[in-house]
């Protein structure tokens, strides 16, 4: 049974919400009343319930299966966190009601900031960015503001090819020129010597490096301290993409590694739900050098008076030089509550254990598959995700995409494909610490079966996949060629009865 679009229900003159209408009154709308007919269907509650329940059943979810998306960190979302975020004292307070009526909200933000700073070994954090990419923007704006304040105007940001697309996009947004840094052939990490050469080549003109660590190949940048030193020596800043921070929480602190700014994806590392594409939350920790430039609003520690919310320039004191504001209001409060609830639940011991289990699980998958699938950088330990390339599919007639789609028929969401760009036909698997050993065993066995099947020439199993999903393979080219982005009423001739 196919689920229609809400517009195909036809209820354009009904509503599924009851209101008590006021008595007649004189409007004061100044003649701006809507004149055209607004045509939006109003479904009765049982219809709406069924529509969205049915739609949902076409989705894959962590709650229904392993979700091995490398770099995305699809792990368990505790419902305790959902419950806490819905406490009226958090969920039902207005960002601009008097501060005297929301001390608990300020306390919560301050507490979360404390956890983030302690975990990262830093002393400042910009809380308000709305998502990871927004955090990157925030960090890079702080860096640009710091350069400007120092009377400098460097034009170049160094970004390795393995970086997330958001990194170059963010740098470009601020007018920077993006320059690549070469990676070592043997493991895809940054080649320190090449980096030093590149810095020398652009002497005085390098604003920052943007580096993911652990990197998107699932490896820890082992020269990270030296990289930071080289960057700092060039009067540049070290922006770290924190997407993979979940691998090292409790094992190492970015502040100790020389990082100047790093966003933390609360939805990756601290398990606020991905929600089908957001909302995220991307607080940015800042080194002492960048701390003064943190955007409004921020919380000032005021000795005996406790934390004070600073919202406007008129409230600034000496040394506070915010570069502006990332968003209206205070950021993603709802996500803060969930993340803090997650952190408190784990505690220092649980957070460390979670990092260790995530790395353990990834390596367990690695050794379970390395004899059949191809590791681009050899059989060395990985961090929380393991990267394969597609050389094992060579001459099978099966593409990386086919392989991924065939996983769907086995009941799995595919891994991240074709990313990072540094290896050919990348397949990046991140099982996360939420998976049991039994779950990993089944996953490994399933992938082994698929690989054998591919090598065995059973191409039909792949080229036509998926066969058993709510939809077969979808035509993305057709969608892009002449985009249909909204529903249009079919012309009368085509209309259904």
């Amino acid at each position, binding site marked *: 049974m196919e689920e229609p679009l809400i517009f195909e229900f036809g209820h354009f003159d009904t509503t599924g919400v009851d209101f008590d209408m006021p008595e007649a009154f004189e409007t004061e709308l100044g*003649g701006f009343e809507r004149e055209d007919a607004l045509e939006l269907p*109003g479904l009765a509650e049982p219809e709406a319930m069924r529509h969205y329940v049915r739609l949902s059943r*076409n989705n894959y979810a962590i709650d229904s299966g392993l979700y091995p998306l490398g770099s995305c960190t699809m792990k368990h979302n505790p419902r305790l966190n959902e419950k806490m975020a819905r406490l009226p004292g958090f969920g039902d307070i*207005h960002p601009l009601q008097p501060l005297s009526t929301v001390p608990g909200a300020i306390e919560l933000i301050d507490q979360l900031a404390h956890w983030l700073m302690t975990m990262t070994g830093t002393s400042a954090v910009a809380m308000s960015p709305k998502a990871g990419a927004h955090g990157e923007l925030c960090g890079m704006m702080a860096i640009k503001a710091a350069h400007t304040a120092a009377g400098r105007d460097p034009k170049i940001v160094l970004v390795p090819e393995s970086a997330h697309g958001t990194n170059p996009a963010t740098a470009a947004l601020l007018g920077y020129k993006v320059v690549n840094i070469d990676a070592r052939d043997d493991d895809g990490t940054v080649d320190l010597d090449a980096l030093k050469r590149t810095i020398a080549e652009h002497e005085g003109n390098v604003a920052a490096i943007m580096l993911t660590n652990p990197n998107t190949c699932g490896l820890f940048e082992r020269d990270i301290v030296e990289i930071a030193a080289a960057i700092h020596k060039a009067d540049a800043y070290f922006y770290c993409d924190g997407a993979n921070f979940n691998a090292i929480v409790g094992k190492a602190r970015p502040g100790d590694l020389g990082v100047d700014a790093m966003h933390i994806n609360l939805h990756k590392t601290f398990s606020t739900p991905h*929600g*089908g594409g*957001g909302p995220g939350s991307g607080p940015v920790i800042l080194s002492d050098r960048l701390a003064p430039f943190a955007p409004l609003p921020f919380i000032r520690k005021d000795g005996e008076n406790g934390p004070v919310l600073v919202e406007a320039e008129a409230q600034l004191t000496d040394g506070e030089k915010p570069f502006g504001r990332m968003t209206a209001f205070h950021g993603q409060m709802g996500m803060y509550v969930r993340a803090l609830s997650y952190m408190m639940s784990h505690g220092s011991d649980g957070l460390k254990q979670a990092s260790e289990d995530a*790395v353990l699980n990834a390596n367990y998958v690695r050794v379970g598959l390395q004899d059949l699938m191809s590791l681009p950088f050899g059989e060395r330990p990985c961090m929380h995700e393991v990267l394969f390339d597609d050389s094992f599919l060579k001459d099978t007639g099966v593409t990386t995409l086919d392989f991924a789609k065939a996983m769907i028929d086995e009941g799995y969401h595919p891994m991240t494909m074709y990313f990072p760009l540094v290896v050919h036909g990348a397949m990046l698997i991140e099982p996360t610490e939420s998976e049991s050993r039994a779950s990993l065993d089944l996953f490994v066995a399933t992938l082994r079966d698929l690989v054998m099947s591919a090598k065995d020439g059973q191409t039909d199993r792949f080229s036509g996949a*998926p066969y058993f999903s709510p939809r077969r393979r979808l035509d993305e080219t057709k969608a892009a060629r002449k985009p249909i982005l909204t529903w249009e009423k079919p012309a009368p001739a085509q209309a259904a009865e």
Partner: protein
Amino acid sequence: MRYLPLSNQDRADMLTRIGVDSIDDLFADIPQKARLNGLMDLPRRASEMQVERQLSAMASKNVSASSVPFFVGAGAYKHHVPSTVDHLIQRSEFLTSYTPYQPEITQGTLQYLFEFQTQVARLTAMDVANASMYDGSTGTAEAVLMAHRVTKKKKAVLSGGLHPQYREVVEGLSELSSHDVVSMPADPMGTEDILAQIDDETSCVVVQSPSFYGQLIDLKPIAEKAHAHKALLIAVFTEVVSLGLMEPAGTQGADIVVGEGQSIGNGLNFGGPYVGLFATRQKYVRQMPGRLCGETTDADGKRGFVLTLSTREQHIRRDKATSNICTNSGLCSLAFTIHLSLLGSKGLKQMATICHANAVNLKKGLSGVAGVEVLNNAYFNEFTVKLPKSADAVVEALAARGILAGVPVSRLIPGQADLENLLVVACTEVNTQEDRDAFVAALKEVLA
């Protein structure tokens, strides 16, 4: 630890299988001196009960909107959301799903995004809408950047009626991206002469209606002047419910319509997460930021939906992308679309009518208080009141009496004497006659 399925036995067995002696062997790439030995200086793990108690204790220090007569708006609004909405967005398949990059197994998300885009396009009377932005303020900044791309110019003119924090977001980003901004002074009554600021250098004019102060603004002449100078009109709203009753910016000539969708489906949440709505003309679709969902067919010829035009996006286009945006506000847009699918145009209009009726009623009440002047003649559910003394002090005094009365303009624009006594007051369908009477009575006391 309740969230971790591995037992110690599992861990030991797995290390053996991997062929290392200890877990730290897997972290060998971390420089020795940078490794944390022992635990971080943070509390140890806590039971559910403990976490609940500690967080509940924090939450209980805050005064929730539902517990008092509540008139705070200025960009976020307290509405009643049907319980169906919160139930549905907590479905595992929505809540714990990823961005729908694998469309075969995420048609649930994709179909509602397509419905959402259609709803937003119709609400705003525009051709196309994206799958949402972080919120109204960041959406406004993205709109300005988009206008720069479209017009290949770089000067934005911001109305004095634009939400002050939206203005700050645009200004900050513009400054650091070397774009120009002309910000008009605060304009409570909607009387500024913005037309005079529009010239050939202008890339876009950003106007909010209803304005931050509640004033309804006629966008048509602004659109005309902008278009005459090859500039775009970016129309902003913070109260999406107004679109149930008011003429949409799309029919007034706006080129980009952007706003905050929180009022529909989403709670106050102290400011976030919210959901930015973003709509434009068909011809600009390839310059839009954010995700787009489009219709297509599958291998069996069945209708289906996919994310499309992703060549605009960072994960494909990298430093040439239209935006660095990656996340949208997925679950909030789901809440929006469910609530709106229940309301329909009929319910939305009823809801909007009640909001307006309550505001009209409150305006009458407040106008009757000695020394109080309402500044707006045309408004939807929000207006600005001039008090005989500092609005901040009055709000605090009313809060002490258990009434949350609105937002002092000085909270957002401190230090300007002419704004010191202005209070922005909002009404929605949650306000009762008793609430309004209590507000008026308490204000009389406080001003007496």
